[in-house]
């Protein structure tokens, strides 16, 4: 997996560790954690779509440079929330952060690497535990 990512989606060092990576969270993927009393995303929200199709994110720096609100990536996705993790956390969990601009979304990037296993906590678990809400889930939740 690591070699696949390095070959096809190499890490871009110009993306600083502090950079925020935004991920849309569908309503099926957030819930109230009774232990913390908070609504948070499930670790299932931070998985690759396929082995060759790594997790999509949006670069907050690109959105800011284009003077766009972070909420613009939620357009057309009612009921969704928006969470952010840092590029540094992704790298810490052996992931590469690779810009992948699309014609419809220039801030698009991918986070590539094994998200299921880890020494202490898998990447998907670490992302879920450390994610911050940029757009919180709807109040009704």
């Amino acid at each position: 997996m690591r070699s696949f990512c390095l070959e096809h989606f190499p890490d871009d060092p110009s993306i600083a560790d502090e950079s925020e990576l935004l991920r849309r969270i569908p309503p099926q993927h957030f819930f109230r954690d009774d232990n913390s009393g908070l609504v948070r995303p499930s670790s299932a929200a931070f998985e690759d779509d396929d082995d060759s199709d790594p997790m999509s994110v949006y670069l907050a720096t690109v959105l800011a440079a284009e003077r766009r609100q972070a909420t613009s990536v939620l357009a057309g996705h009612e009921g969704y929330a928006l969470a952010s993790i840092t590029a540094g956390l992704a790298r810490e969990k052996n992931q590469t952060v690779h810009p992948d601009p699309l014609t419809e979304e220039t801030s698009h990037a991918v986070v590539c690497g094994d998200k299921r296993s880890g020494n202490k906590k898998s990447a998907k678990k670490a992302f879920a535990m450390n994610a911050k809400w940029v757009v919180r889930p709807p109040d009704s939740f």
Partner: protein
Amino acid sequence: MVETRFERAVQLEAGYVSEGKEKRRFLKARLHVEEWTRAQQAYRKLRGKHVSGKPRTATRDLRRDSRKAFDRSRQSLAEASRQVIPRGVISAVERMIELLELPPGWNSYNARPITKENVNFAFNLLGRIMRHDTPAPNVVPMVRGGVQLEWHTRGINLEISIYSPGEVSFFAEDVRGGNPTEGELDLAALTQWVDRLSM
């Protein structure tokens, strides 16, 4: 024990536990309880006579038998309560049935629909590890058609990720301290964690 037609339908469809099996389990549990009660009565009776000169070893034997019978009744009651479908499983199944209707791309990316095989596996697994007093898990769809079962309550974080029936992993931790556990499906370990978050 079975309260609604839906619960009965779920049981029958899954072939999980027949009425006869269920009855036998509870009869067995009741037999053990009766055995324990009889042993207790005999012990008490003899204990009363002991004051008037019965040998001490006889009362000791009876006390030991009574304890054994009690342990057996407790074990079989615990087993019986685990075998009949708990309420938490029923609500999890209802949620899983909803998830089966998710279309491709349901997460706004490229998520796949949830597969019946994974839902069946999740149902059977829950039936094996959950007790009547276990809270229902959060049932979360996974992007490649799997199902994730999560509990975040009573100081325990427990997540079971079913990628496919052949690829299942779990994560468990006590938020009050201790090292988290992460690994492949381990029924014994899972049952212990589920017991910890049950009443």
